[in-house]
Protein backbone atom coordinates (compact mmCIF):
# COMPACT_ATOMS: atom_id res chain seq x y z
CA UNK A 1 0.00 0.00 0.00
CA UNK A 2 1.53 3.18 -1.09
CA UNK A 3 1.20 5.51 -3.84
CA UNK A 4 3.68 7.43 -5.71
CA UNK A 5 2.95 10.15 -3.37
CA UNK A 6 5.96 9.84 -2.45
CA UNK A 7 8.62 10.46 -4.78
CA UNK A 8 9.53 13.72 -3.08
CA UNK A 9 13.04 14.77 -2.17
CA UNK A 10 14.04 13.27 1.15
CA UNK A 11 15.61 16.48 2.31
CA UNK A 12 13.85 19.75 1.90
CA UNK A 13 15.43 21.91 -0.74
CA UNK A 14 17.17 18.99 -2.41
CA UNK A 15 17.02 19.47 -6.16
CA UNK A 16 17.66 16.98 -8.88
CA UNK A 17 21.05 17.98 -10.14
CA UNK A 18 21.44 18.15 -13.88
CA UNK A 19 24.04 15.64 -14.95
CA UNK A 20 26.76 16.71 -17.29
CA UNK A 21 28.29 13.48 -18.48
CA UNK A 22 31.98 13.16 -19.31
CA UNK A 23 32.79 12.18 -22.89
CA UNK A 24 33.54 8.67 -21.68
CA UNK A 25 30.14 8.40 -20.08
CA UNK A 26 28.37 9.96 -23.00
CA UNK A 27 28.35 6.73 -24.95
CA UNK A 28 27.08 4.72 -21.97
CA UNK A 29 24.47 7.37 -21.43
CA UNK A 30 23.34 7.13 -25.01
CA UNK A 31 23.03 3.37 -24.73
CA UNK A 32 21.10 3.73 -21.47
CA UNK A 33 18.74 6.28 -23.01
CA UNK A 34 18.20 4.07 -26.02
CA UNK A 35 17.25 1.15 -23.83
CA UNK A 36 14.83 3.29 -21.82
CA UNK A 37 13.31 4.65 -25.04
CA UNK A 38 12.83 1.12 -26.32
CA UNK A 39 10.98 0.33 -23.06
CA UNK A 40 13.77 -2.08 -22.15
CA UNK A 41 14.74 -3.04 -18.62
CA UNK A 42 17.76 -1.92 -16.66
CA UNK A 43 19.30 -4.63 -14.50
CA UNK A 44 21.49 -4.19 -11.39
CA UNK A 45 24.80 -4.73 -13.13
CA UNK A 46 24.01 -2.50 -16.08
CA UNK A 47 25.57 0.91 -16.28
CA UNK A 48 23.17 3.59 -15.15
CA UNK A 49 23.53 7.31 -14.55
CA UNK A 50 24.14 8.15 -10.92
CA UNK A 51 21.02 10.31 -10.75
CA UNK A 52 18.88 7.38 -11.97
CA UNK A 53 20.38 5.15 -9.29
CA UNK A 54 19.84 7.76 -6.60
CA UNK A 55 16.30 8.50 -7.65
CA UNK A 56 15.47 4.81 -7.69
CA UNK A 57 16.96 4.18 -4.26
CA UNK A 58 14.96 7.10 -2.96
CA UNK A 59 11.71 6.07 -4.61
CA UNK A 60 11.96 2.35 -3.79
CA UNK A 61 13.03 2.98 -0.22
CA UNK A 62 10.26 5.52 0.34
CA UNK A 63 7.92 2.91 -0.99
CA UNK A 64 9.39 0.24 1.32
CA UNK A 65 9.28 2.56 4.33
CA UNK A 66 5.63 3.30 3.56
CA UNK A 67 4.84 -0.41 3.69
CA UNK A 68 6.61 -0.86 7.00
CA UNK A 69 5.21 2.23 8.67
CA UNK A 70 1.87 1.32 7.11
CA UNK A 71 1.78 -1.81 9.26
CA UNK A 72 1.24 0.34 12.34
CA UNK A 73 -2.09 2.11 11.77
CA UNK A 74 -3.80 -1.15 10.88
CA UNK A 75 -1.83 -3.16 13.41
CA UNK A 76 -3.51 -0.88 15.94
CA UNK A 77 -6.71 -2.90 15.51
CA UNK A 78 -5.41 -6.48 15.42
CA UNK A 79 -5.91 -7.05 19.14
CA UNK A 80 -9.44 -5.66 19.02
CA UNK A 81 -10.69 -7.12 15.74
CA UNK A 82 -14.37 -7.85 16.36
CA UNK A 83 -14.41 -11.42 15.03
CA UNK A 84 -11.83 -14.15 14.68
CA UNK A 85 -12.25 -14.15 10.92
CA UNK A 86 -11.51 -10.43 10.72
CA UNK A 87 -8.59 -10.85 13.09
CA UNK A 88 -7.04 -13.46 10.83
CA UNK A 89 -7.65 -11.35 7.73
CA UNK A 90 -6.11 -8.31 9.35
CA UNK A 91 -3.01 -10.15 10.58
CA UNK A 92 -2.54 -11.62 7.11
CA UNK A 93 -2.91 -8.19 5.61
CA UNK A 94 -0.53 -6.40 7.94
CA UNK A 95 1.88 -9.28 7.44
CA UNK A 96 1.62 -8.77 3.68
CA UNK A 97 2.58 -5.11 4.12
CA UNK A 98 5.69 -6.32 5.89
CA UNK A 99 6.34 -8.70 3.03
CA UNK A 100 5.95 -5.88 0.52
CA UNK A 101 8.42 -3.80 2.47
CA UNK A 102 10.80 -6.72 2.40
CA UNK A 103 10.49 -7.26 -1.37
CA UNK A 104 11.09 -3.57 -1.91
CA UNK A 105 14.07 -3.30 0.43
CA UNK A 106 15.53 -6.23 -1.49
CA UNK A 107 14.97 -4.40 -4.78
CA UNK A 108 16.65 -1.29 -3.39
CA UNK A 109 19.56 -3.37 -2.14
CA UNK A 110 20.36 -4.44 -5.68
CA UNK A 111 21.33 -0.81 -6.25
CA UNK A 112 24.14 -1.08 -3.72
CA UNK A 113 22.48 0.35 -0.64
CA UNK A 114 22.16 -2.06 2.29
CA UNK A 115 18.96 -2.61 4.27
CA UNK A 116 20.64 -1.09 7.31
CA UNK A 117 21.50 2.03 5.34
CA UNK A 118 17.93 2.26 4.10
CA UNK A 119 16.57 1.83 7.62
CA UNK A 120 19.01 4.38 8.91
CA UNK A 121 17.48 6.83 6.46
CA UNK A 122 14.03 6.15 7.83
CA UNK A 123 15.03 6.11 11.49
CA UNK A 124 16.97 9.34 11.31
CA UNK A 125 13.95 11.05 9.78
CA UNK A 126 15.79 11.81 6.53
CA UNK A 127 13.79 9.45 4.34
CA UNK A 128 10.13 10.08 3.72
CA UNK A 129 7.21 7.69 3.57
CA UNK A 130 3.62 8.06 2.51
CA UNK A 131 1.86 10.82 4.44
CA UNK A 132 -1.33 8.79 4.77
CA UNK A 133 0.14 6.66 7.55
CA UNK A 134 0.59 9.63 9.82
CA UNK A 135 -3.12 9.77 10.61
CA UNK A 136 -4.65 7.81 13.46
CA UNK A 137 -6.98 4.83 12.98
CA UNK A 138 -9.79 5.75 15.32
CA UNK A 139 -12.43 3.15 14.74
CA UNK A 140 -12.62 -0.36 13.33
CA UNK A 141 -14.01 0.88 10.02
CA UNK A 142 -10.69 2.62 9.41
CA UNK A 143 -9.27 -0.81 8.72
CA UNK A 144 -11.81 -1.43 5.98
CA UNK A 145 -11.51 2.11 4.66
CA UNK A 146 -7.73 1.83 4.44
CA UNK A 147 -8.10 -1.34 2.42
CA UNK A 148 -10.69 0.15 0.13
CA UNK A 149 -9.31 3.66 -0.34
CA UNK A 150 -5.61 3.60 0.52
CA UNK A 151 -4.85 0.25 -1.04
CA UNK A 152 -7.16 1.13 -3.89
CA UNK A 153 -5.14 4.26 -4.49
CA UNK A 154 -1.93 2.28 -4.19
CA UNK A 155 -2.96 -0.24 -6.80
CA UNK A 156 -3.61 2.58 -9.27
CA UNK A 157 0.03 3.49 -9.03
CA UNK A 158 1.52 0.08 -8.58
CA UNK A 159 0.09 -1.59 -11.64
CA UNK A 160 1.92 0.79 -14.00
CA UNK A 161 5.07 0.32 -11.90
CA UNK A 162 5.06 -3.37 -12.80
CA UNK A 163 6.37 -2.08 -16.14
CA UNK A 164 8.91 0.32 -14.69
CA UNK A 165 12.35 0.44 -16.26
CA UNK A 166 14.29 -1.06 -13.36
CA UNK A 167 14.03 -4.86 -13.47
CA UNK A 168 14.17 -5.73 -9.76
CA UNK A 169 11.67 -2.98 -8.92
CA UNK A 170 9.24 -4.05 -11.59
CA UNK A 171 9.49 -7.69 -10.52
CA UNK A 172 8.90 -6.76 -6.89
CA UNK A 173 5.86 -4.77 -7.99
CA UNK A 174 4.42 -7.75 -9.85
CA UNK A 175 4.53 -9.74 -6.63
CA UNK A 176 3.14 -6.84 -4.61
CA UNK A 177 0.25 -6.25 -7.02
CA UNK A 178 -0.79 -9.90 -6.91
CA UNK A 179 -1.18 -9.63 -3.16
CA UNK A 180 -2.57 -6.12 -3.08
CA UNK A 181 -5.84 -6.86 -4.81
CA UNK A 182 -6.76 -9.01 -1.79
CA UNK A 183 -6.20 -5.94 0.36
CA UNK A 184 -8.59 -3.70 -1.47
CA UNK A 185 -11.30 -6.31 -1.80
CA UNK A 186 -11.18 -7.37 1.85
CA UNK A 187 -11.44 -3.72 2.91
CA UNK A 188 -14.40 -2.93 0.73
CA UNK A 189 -16.17 -6.14 1.70
CA UNK A 190 -15.61 -5.43 5.41
CA UNK A 191 -17.32 -2.06 4.94
CA UNK A 192 -20.18 -3.59 2.96
CA UNK A 193 -20.88 -6.00 5.80
CA UNK A 194 -20.78 -3.19 8.36
CA UNK A 195 -23.20 -1.13 6.28
CA UNK A 196 -25.69 -4.00 6.55
CA UNK A 197 -25.29 -4.00 10.33
CA UNK A 198 -26.42 -1.54 12.97
CA UNK A 199 -26.80 2.21 12.69
CA UNK A 200 -23.72 2.61 14.89
CA UNK A 201 -21.73 0.52 12.44
CA UNK A 202 -22.87 2.59 9.47
CA UNK A 203 -21.81 5.69 11.34
CA UNK A 204 -18.40 4.17 11.93
CA UNK A 205 -17.97 3.60 8.21
CA UNK A 206 -19.03 7.13 7.32
CA UNK A 207 -16.75 8.56 9.99
CA UNK A 208 -13.76 6.62 8.71
CA UNK A 209 -14.40 7.70 5.12
CA UNK A 210 -14.88 11.32 6.17
CA UNK A 211 -11.51 11.36 7.86
CA UNK A 212 -9.61 9.45 5.18
CA UNK A 213 -11.00 10.78 1.92
CA UNK A 214 -9.00 13.97 1.56
CA UNK A 215 -5.84 12.35 2.86
CA UNK A 216 -6.22 9.74 0.13
CA UNK A 217 -6.53 12.36 -2.57
CA UNK A 218 -3.45 14.13 -1.26
CA UNK A 219 -1.59 10.84 -1.16
CA UNK A 220 -1.18 10.91 -4.95
CA UNK A 221 1.28 13.71 -4.45
CA UNK A 222 1.38 17.38 -5.38
CA UNK A 223 -0.32 18.61 -8.56
CA UNK A 224 1.68 17.95 -11.71
CA UNK A 225 2.54 21.63 -12.00
CA UNK A 226 4.33 21.45 -8.63
CA UNK A 227 6.04 18.09 -9.09
CA UNK A 228 9.58 18.81 -10.16
CA UNK A 229 10.66 15.19 -10.06
CA UNK A 230 7.82 13.88 -12.13
CA UNK A 231 9.11 14.73 -15.58
CA UNK A 232 12.47 13.07 -14.99
CA UNK A 233 10.75 10.04 -13.45
CA UNK A 234 8.54 9.72 -16.52
CA UNK A 235 11.53 10.08 -18.80
CA UNK A 236 13.27 7.27 -16.95
CA UNK A 237 10.28 5.00 -16.91
CA UNK A 238 10.13 4.81 -13.14
CA UNK A 239 6.95 6.79 -12.99
CA UNK A 240 4.36 5.98 -15.57
CA UNK A 241 1.32 8.15 -14.98
CA UNK A 242 1.20 11.69 -13.59
CA UNK A 243 -0.07 12.48 -10.10
CA UNK A 244 -3.13 14.36 -11.33
CA UNK A 245 -4.07 11.70 -13.85
CA UNK A 246 -3.86 8.98 -11.23
CA UNK A 247 -5.84 11.08 -8.76
CA UNK A 248 -8.56 11.61 -11.33
CA UNK A 249 -8.62 7.93 -12.15
CA UNK A 250 -8.98 7.15 -8.46
CA UNK A 251 -11.85 9.61 -7.96
CA UNK A 252 -13.66 8.30 -11.02
CA UNK A 253 -13.33 4.71 -9.86
CA UNK A 254 -14.25 5.41 -6.25
CA UNK A 255 -17.42 7.50 -6.58
CA UNK A 256 -19.56 4.62 -7.93
CA UNK A 257 -18.11 2.28 -5.29
CA UNK A 258 -19.12 4.74 -2.57
CA UNK A 259 -22.64 4.77 -3.99
CA UNK A 260 -22.90 0.96 -3.84
CA UNK A 261 -21.60 1.11 -0.29
CA UNK A 262 -24.21 3.70 0.63
CA UNK A 263 -21.94 6.37 2.05
CA UNK A 264 -21.21 9.93 0.98
CA UNK A 265 -17.82 11.33 0.13
CA UNK A 266 -17.09 14.51 2.11
CA UNK A 267 -16.68 16.92 -0.81
CA UNK A 268 -19.51 19.31 -1.75
CA UNK A 269 -17.74 20.04 -5.05
CA UNK A 270 -17.67 16.43 -6.11
CA UNK A 271 -19.81 16.09 -9.24
CA UNK A 272 -19.81 14.54 -12.67
CA UNK A 273 -18.49 16.79 -15.41
CA UNK A 274 -20.21 15.80 -18.64
CA UNK A 275 -17.78 17.73 -20.76
CA UNK A 276 -14.60 16.25 -19.26
CA UNK A 277 -16.25 12.86 -18.73
CA UNK A 278 -14.70 12.87 -15.27
CA UNK A 279 -15.71 13.81 -11.74
CA UNK A 280 -14.72 17.29 -10.58
CA UNK A 281 -13.51 17.51 -7.02
CA UNK A 282 -12.69 20.25 -4.53
CA UNK A 283 -9.49 21.82 -3.30
CA UNK A 284 -6.97 19.64 -1.48
CA UNK A 285 -5.33 21.19 1.56
CA UNK A 286 -1.70 21.13 0.41
CA UNK A 287 -0.47 22.99 3.43
CA UNK A 288 -1.62 20.15 5.64
CA UNK A 289 -0.10 17.66 3.24
CA UNK A 290 3.32 19.30 3.35
CA UNK A 291 3.16 19.72 7.11
CA UNK A 292 2.58 16.00 7.42
CA UNK A 293 5.27 15.07 4.92
CA UNK A 294 7.72 17.24 6.78
CA UNK A 295 7.09 15.37 10.01
CA UNK A 296 4.45 17.49 11.68
CA UNK A 297 1.30 15.48 11.15
CA UNK A 298 -0.77 13.99 13.95
CA UNK A 299 1.13 10.69 14.26
CA UNK A 300 4.53 11.19 12.61
CA UNK A 301 6.47 11.13 15.84
CA UNK A 302 4.66 8.07 17.17
CA UNK A 303 5.07 6.15 13.95
CA UNK A 304 8.74 6.85 13.59
CA UNK A 305 9.60 6.33 17.25
CA UNK A 306 7.79 2.99 17.17
CA UNK A 307 9.81 1.82 14.18
CA UNK A 308 13.04 2.92 15.83
CA UNK A 309 12.11 1.20 19.07
CA UNK A 310 11.26 -2.08 17.34
CA UNK A 311 14.58 -1.97 15.52
CA UNK A 312 16.60 -1.12 18.62
CA UNK A 313 14.78 -3.60 20.84
CA UNK A 314 15.42 -6.28 18.24
CA UNK A 315 19.15 -5.69 18.09
CA UNK A 316 20.00 -8.31 20.71
CA UNK A 317 17.85 -10.87 18.88
CA UNK A 318 19.62 -10.23 15.58
CA UNK A 319 22.97 -10.28 17.34
CA UNK A 320 22.15 -13.60 18.98
CA UNK A 321 21.35 -15.26 15.66
CA UNK A 322 24.51 -13.94 14.12
CA UNK A 323 26.70 -14.92 17.06
CA UNK A 324 25.24 -18.41 16.95
CA UNK A 325 25.78 -18.70 13.20
CA UNK A 326 29.41 -17.66 13.67
CA UNK A 327 29.93 -20.22 16.44
CA UNK A 328 28.41 -22.94 14.30
CA UNK A 329 30.72 -22.02 11.45
CA UNK A 330 33.74 -22.15 13.73
CA UNK A 331 32.66 -25.53 15.08
CA UNK A 332 32.28 -26.89 11.58
CA UNK A 333 35.74 -25.64 10.66
CA UNK A 334 37.28 -27.17 13.76
CA UNK A 335 35.65 -30.48 12.96
CA UNK A 336 36.92 -30.36 9.41
CA UNK A 337 40.45 -29.56 10.58
Amino acid at each position, binding site marked *: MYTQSFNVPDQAGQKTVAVTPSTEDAELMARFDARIDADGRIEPQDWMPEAYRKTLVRQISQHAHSEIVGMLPEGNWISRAPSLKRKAILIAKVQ*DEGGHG*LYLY*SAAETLGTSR*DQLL*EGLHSGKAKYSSIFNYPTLNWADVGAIGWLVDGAAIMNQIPLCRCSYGPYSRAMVRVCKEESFHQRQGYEALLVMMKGTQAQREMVQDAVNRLWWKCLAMFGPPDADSPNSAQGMRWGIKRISNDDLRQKFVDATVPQAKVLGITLPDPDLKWNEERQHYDYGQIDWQEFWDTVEGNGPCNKERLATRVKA*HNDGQWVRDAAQAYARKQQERAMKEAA
Partner: protein
Amino acid sequence: MTTTALKEWPLWEIFVRSKQGLEHKHCGSLHAADASQALHMARDVYTRRQEGVSIWVVPSASITASNPDEKGEFFDPAADKIYRHPTFYEIPDEVGHM
Protein backbone atom coordinates in the same frame (compact mmCIF):
# COMPACT_ATOMS: atom_id res chain seq x y z
CA MET B 1 16.71 9.91 17.15
CA THR B 2 19.55 7.48 17.53
CA THR B 3 19.81 3.91 16.41
CA THR B 4 22.19 1.27 17.69
CA ALA B 5 25.23 0.14 15.76
CA LEU B 6 24.28 -1.51 12.49
CA LYS B 7 25.29 -5.10 12.07
CA GLU B 8 23.51 -6.77 9.28
CA TRP B 9 22.58 -10.37 8.62
CA PRO B 10 23.84 -11.57 5.24
CA LEU B 11 21.61 -11.50 2.18
CA TRP B 12 20.27 -14.69 0.55
CA GLU B 13 18.73 -15.30 -2.84
CA ILE B 14 15.60 -17.42 -2.73
CA PHE B 15 14.52 -19.92 -5.37
CA VAL B 16 11.13 -21.59 -5.14
CA ARG B 17 9.81 -24.55 -7.12
CA SER B 18 6.09 -24.06 -7.48
CA LYS B 19 5.10 -27.60 -8.45
CA GLN B 20 6.67 -30.99 -8.77
CA GLY B 21 8.36 -31.23 -12.13
CA LEU B 22 8.92 -27.51 -12.63
CA GLU B 23 12.25 -25.80 -12.10
CA HIS B 24 13.17 -23.63 -9.14
CA LYS B 25 12.65 -19.98 -9.97
CA HIS B 26 14.28 -16.96 -8.42
CA CYS B 27 11.64 -15.11 -6.44
CA GLY B 28 13.55 -12.59 -4.35
CA SER B 29 15.94 -12.25 -1.46
CA LEU B 30 15.99 -11.84 2.30
CA HIS B 31 18.32 -11.48 5.26
CA ALA B 32 19.11 -14.38 7.58
CA ALA B 33 21.91 -15.31 9.94
CA ASP B 34 22.65 -18.64 8.25
CA ALA B 35 21.38 -21.09 5.65
CA SER B 36 18.97 -23.01 7.84
CA GLN B 37 17.41 -19.81 9.09
CA ALA B 38 17.25 -18.48 5.53
CA LEU B 39 15.25 -21.57 4.51
CA HIS B 40 12.72 -21.03 7.26
CA MET B 41 12.42 -17.34 6.64
CA ALA B 42 11.97 -18.02 2.95
CA ARG B 43 9.09 -20.33 3.83
CA ASP B 44 7.41 -17.55 5.79
CA VAL B 45 8.18 -14.76 3.35
CA TYR B 46 7.83 -16.35 -0.07
CA THR B 47 5.36 -19.23 0.26
CA ARG B 48 2.51 -17.66 2.22
CA ARG B 49 0.11 -18.35 -0.63
CA GLN B 50 1.10 -21.90 -1.48
CA GLU B 51 3.65 -20.68 -3.99
CA GLY B 52 6.01 -23.55 -3.43
CA VAL B 53 6.84 -27.16 -2.72
CA SER B 54 10.60 -26.73 -2.52
CA ILE B 55 12.97 -23.91 -1.62
CA TRP B 56 16.64 -23.25 -2.36
CA VAL B 57 18.60 -20.53 -0.61
CA VAL B 58 21.93 -19.27 -1.88
CA PRO B 59 24.15 -16.63 -0.29
CA SER B 60 23.85 -13.60 -2.57
CA ALA B 61 27.60 -13.16 -2.34
CA SER B 62 28.10 -16.60 -3.91
CA ILE B 63 26.43 -15.69 -7.16
CA THR B 64 28.71 -14.92 -10.06
CA ALA B 65 26.89 -13.04 -12.77
CA SER B 66 27.82 -12.45 -16.39
CA ASN B 67 29.18 -9.01 -17.11
CA PRO B 68 26.76 -6.77 -18.96
CA ASP B 69 29.72 -5.18 -20.79
CA GLU B 70 30.43 -8.55 -22.37
CA LYS B 71 26.85 -9.06 -23.44
CA GLY B 72 27.83 -8.76 -27.08
CA GLU B 73 30.49 -11.47 -27.14
CA PHE B 74 28.55 -13.62 -24.69
CA PHE B 75 25.18 -13.79 -26.34
CA ASP B 76 25.24 -12.39 -29.86
CA PRO B 77 27.20 -15.30 -31.41
CA ALA B 78 24.20 -17.54 -30.74
CA ALA B 79 21.97 -15.37 -32.87
CA ASP B 80 22.97 -16.73 -36.29
CA LYS B 81 22.95 -20.43 -35.39
CA ILE B 82 19.44 -20.79 -36.64
CA TYR B 83 20.14 -24.36 -37.70
CA ARG B 84 19.92 -25.27 -34.02
CA HIS B 85 16.17 -24.76 -34.09
CA PRO B 86 13.75 -27.38 -35.41
CA THR B 87 11.85 -24.85 -37.50
CA PHE B 88 14.98 -24.43 -39.67
CA TYR B 89 14.22 -27.73 -41.40
CA GLU B 90 11.46 -28.17 -43.95
CA ILE B 91 9.74 -31.55 -43.79
CA PRO B 92 7.01 -32.59 -46.26
CA ASP B 93 3.51 -32.25 -44.78
CA GLU B 94 2.67 -35.91 -45.36
CA VAL B 95 5.33 -36.91 -42.80
CA GLY B 96 3.09 -35.42 -40.12
CA HIS B 97 4.30 -34.27 -36.76
CA MET B 98 8.00 -34.73 -36.18
